[in-house]
């Protein structure tokens, strides 16, 4: 058996690449969504963030990316404070992000969407385009189609690719697998792991928590705007509290059930007359 | 048809006593398609006030100036409301007949004597105005005839007219047309346009389609757009173009020569050098003097009426307007007239603009119409004048 994706721990230098320090942020006056959220990502780490709906996961990513007003705490990138820095400055510093909603430019073609991904260094377009289209060959075929007419999953592919175009050093992903077909989801997770292994620090918000925990080095469970639990992906995956509160038992049950009689019996052609 | 002066001079029982201040309001165009005529009119009013004060007029005079805009805005009705609220005794304005119609009822209801120095629309003659509406400019029944005559006299057999679709344009067009046709000519194209129009190539084409010998342009500010289309682009000879009071102006910025030979009519006597000089003292930037004299006279007649009544109330003024304008001792300057009135004489004011004799409708019955001609520098100079009377019809 070959080496498992996330089995090795990343050698940590002392300083995280990206750190949010006791972050407090919110949209409406007087209502904080993040209540002192501390998340670290060390160089080369793949960090998963899971948690219930409305926990503040997307808000955290948006706060890092300068799209939510920060009311307290600080954000550090490679030792430099980037609190409230604007998005395009962060992009220039090598941070990329895929938002959860509205993550394509509907009236631009797929190709143009990807061009926007590498807006700041257009010369590398051809090279990067080739890279992302090996990931999602569909996109190559449809390069002239307007993103606004794409299906939900297709958009998601475009959104992922757009962020990958720029070859970031830190990548923030907000539910990249949502809406993708199972095989694409798996592929996406693996690609993310691969990209991460190539040296990109990744912070990934996921609701497909099992898959996410399977591949990430460390993960945080966010609840009510705070980092409630943290640990390696495996630790959390096997933590019954986490399972109960956040992962649910459905997948595990299903797996167990199928590993039972269903897989034991070879598929038969015989029907099931009632 | 004037009322015996003695009668109205006596303070009649139902005329309230004024407040001792002869409050003048103006509602003249500061903006809009007649804005270029605002300054001379305002200057005329101011000059009149200065003259009245210098002549020791018995009442204090206040001046409230308001804009009249044009018919495409709602300024006039607001200004009129403000003047009524401010309690003016007389309101001088508006210049445009169309605008005057929009607030004349407000003045009547508010009990303000409205005296327009420039309204020439025939429609005012029999407007039910309870004697609150007066004007010092003659109805276009006169100017229309003069214009028609002028064109016919220059040999135009087939005439085109482009006119503004408002009471002024309609009235003037009608009278000019009548004059031309009764002289044996033909108005082959008569094209109206609406205030607010800015591009006239269609209308000009429509005019030229009939191949007219001469074209009368009855318009305001829009003339500055009509002429380039007509003369520069379509090459219609400028000396076959006829202007009217609405557009006779020295302020066009055309290429030199554009207007050369064009003629125009303008109610009122030629402004005397002296009068012009005094106006220029009031407003050195004046370039046109249209209706300055009529504005001057509007204030003066009203003041004389107040002086005669010894009462500055609007109702007293309206009751004496006709009396001071006609019959009695002729006088031509404010000082002379006031002195005569002081002596208890009935006066007949003949002012800067002409004889000024009001009929029972509040219209002047006699007037001059000046005829002017443009030179290559696009400035006009007097050519001739025509005298007319509206009484003897």
């Amino acid at each position: 058996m070959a080496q498992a994706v996330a089995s090795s721990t990343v050698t940590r230098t002392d300083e995280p690449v990206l750190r949010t320090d006791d972050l407090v942020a919110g949209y409406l006056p007087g209502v904080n969504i993040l209540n002192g959220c501390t998340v670290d990502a060390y160089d080369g780490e793949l960090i998963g963030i899971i948690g219930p709906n409305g926990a503040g996961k997307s808000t955290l990513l948006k706060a890092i990316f300068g799209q939510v007003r920060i009311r307290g705490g600080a954000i550090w990138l490679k030792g430099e404070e980037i609190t409230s820095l604007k998005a395009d400055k962060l992009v220039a510093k090598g941070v990329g992000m895929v938002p959860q909603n509205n993550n394509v430019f509907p009236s631009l073609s797929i190709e143009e969407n990807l061009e926007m991904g590498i807006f700041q260094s257009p010369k590398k377009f051809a090279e990067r385009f080739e890279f992302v289209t090996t990931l999602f060959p569909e996109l190559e075929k449809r390069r002239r189609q307007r993103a606004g007419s794409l299906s939900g999953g297709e958009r998601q592919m475009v959104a992922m690719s757009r962020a990958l175009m720029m070859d970031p050093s830190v990548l923030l992903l907000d539910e990249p697998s949502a809406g993708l077909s199972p095989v694409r989801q798996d592929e996406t997770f693996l690609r993310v792991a691969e990209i991460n292994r190539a040296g990109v620090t990744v912070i990934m918000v996921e609701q497909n928590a099992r898959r996410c925990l399977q591949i990430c080095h460390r993960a945080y469970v966010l609840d009510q705007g705070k980092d409630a639990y943290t640990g390696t992906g495996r630790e959390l995956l096997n933590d019954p509290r986490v399972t109960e509160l956040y992962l649910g038992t459905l997948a595990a049950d299903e797996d167990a059930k199928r590993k039972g009689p269903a897989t034991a019996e070879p598929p038969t052609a015989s029907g099931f007359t009632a | 048809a004037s009322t015996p002066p003695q009668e109205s001079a006596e303070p009649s029982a139902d005329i309230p006593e004024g407040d001792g201040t002869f409050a003048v309001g103006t509602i003249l165009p500061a903006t809009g398609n007649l804005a270029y005529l605002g300054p001379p009119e305002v200057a005329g009013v101011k000059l009149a006030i200065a003259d009245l004060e210098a002549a020791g007029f018995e009442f204090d005079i206040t001046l409230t100036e308001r804009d009249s805009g044009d018919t495409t805005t709602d300024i006039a009705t607001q200004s009129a409301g403000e003047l009524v609220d401010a309690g003016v005794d007389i309101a001088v304005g508006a210049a445009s007949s169309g605008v005057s119609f929009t607030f004349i009822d407000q003045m009547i209801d508010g009990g303000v004597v409205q005296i327009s120095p420039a309204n020439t629309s025939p429609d005012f003659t029999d407007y039910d105005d309870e004697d609150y509406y007066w004007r010092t400019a003659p109805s276009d029944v006169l100017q229309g005839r003069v214009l028609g005559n002028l064109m016919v006299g220059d040999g135009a057999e087939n005439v085109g007219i482009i006119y503004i679709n408002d009471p002024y344009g309609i009235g003037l067009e009608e009278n000019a047309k009548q004059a031309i046709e009764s002289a044996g000519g033909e108005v082959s194209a008569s094209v109206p346009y609406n205030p607010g129009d800015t591009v006239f190539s269609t209308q000009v084409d429509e005019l030229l389609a009939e191949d007219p010998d001469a074209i009368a342009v009855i318009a305001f500010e829009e003339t500055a757009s009509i002429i380039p289309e007509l003369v520069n682009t379509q090459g219609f000879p400028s000396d076959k173009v006829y202007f009217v009071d609405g557009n006779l102006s020295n302020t066009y910025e055309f290429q030199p020569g554009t207007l050369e030979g064009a003629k125009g009519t303008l109610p009122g006597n030629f402004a005397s050098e002296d009068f012009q000089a005094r106006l220029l003292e009031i407003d050195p930037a004046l370039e046109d003097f249209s209706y300055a004299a009529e504005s001057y006279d509007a204030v003066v007649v009203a003041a004389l009426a107040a002086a005669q009544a010894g009462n500055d109330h609007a109702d007293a003024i309206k009751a004496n307007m006709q009396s001071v304008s006609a019959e009695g001792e002729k006088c031509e300057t404010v000082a002379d007239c006031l002195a005569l009135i002081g002596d208890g004489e009935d006066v007949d004011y003949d002012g800067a603009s002409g004889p000024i004799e009001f009929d029972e409708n509040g219209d002047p019955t006699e007037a001059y119409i000046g005829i002017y001609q443009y030179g290559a520098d696009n400035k006009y100079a007097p050519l001739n004048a025509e005298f007319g009377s509206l009484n003897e019809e």
Partner: protein
Amino acid sequence: MSDTSTVRTHPLVKGEVGPGCAKVDPIVVADGVTRTFGGLTAVDVQHVEIPRNAITALIGPNGAGKTTFFNLLTGFDKPNTGSWSFEGHSLAGVPAYRVARRGMVRTFQLTKSLGRLSVLQNMLLGATKQPGENMFRALVRPLWRNREQEITEKADDLLKRFKLDTKREDYAASLSGGQRKLLEMARALMSDPVLVMLDEPMAGVNPALTQSLLGHIKDLKAQGMSVLFVEHDMHMVRHISDWVIVMAEGRVVAEGPPETVMSDPAVIDAYLGAHHDTDLGEMTGDDRAALAQEAAAEIPVDVSPTPVSDPTPVSDTTPVSDKEEK
């Protein structure tokens, strides 16, 4: 259809199981529905029937035409050809709102929450038969007060289930991505639909919550509703669906009970991936390479318009009735 060597039957099916098979009691029947965009044929459904009082999953690769098919059925888009009926009434050309009134209510994959209405108002809007929605009756409160009370109670109940009760008075625009999905679904349920059509209802919803909601969806069936949903979460599909229809490139390429369909190699190849159940963390390099290939060829060329690889054996050991009892 073409395979006669094996007899495959199912309690929901009249006759033989296969793509486009006739159902015992269909609620929706679609015939020859096609929709093209420029050169692309997004939907090309020869014949499909949705069973009544069952939970049907519609699965298929991205871009298979599932959403477009939803749009066509519900009157939000016009097909190039085809006819379809709902409870025996033809719906071709019927405007969307009428379709919904007949009891065929759908949700949107890309959520449509009414941002500047509170969550509760969003819910109330979902309810039908409101006298107060008539302009004139609206003026007289007593005419609609009772109904308003009823539906408010119902809405509160749903909100609690969907864990949105704390957000009751907030603007819907302030909801998180997952919460919007939940609201969308809950709102659709307000109208007591006959057939509820959910377009990826659980994408972005926390798995623990998903699990708790499945029970609710099953309840719907118990109440006599039918459910048609699109979903990429195979655990969920497997867990609650009675019937699965697979679309690819606009066509219905397979259908059957979940276990059968999900072990269909063609479906696995085209959609699930062979490693669907493998832990990604434990995956070998070979596995990864294989997976990459699968993903690259997600819509394999060999998925032909005719049924998926004919000799596919149908395997099922879990009778449908079992599930229903859960």
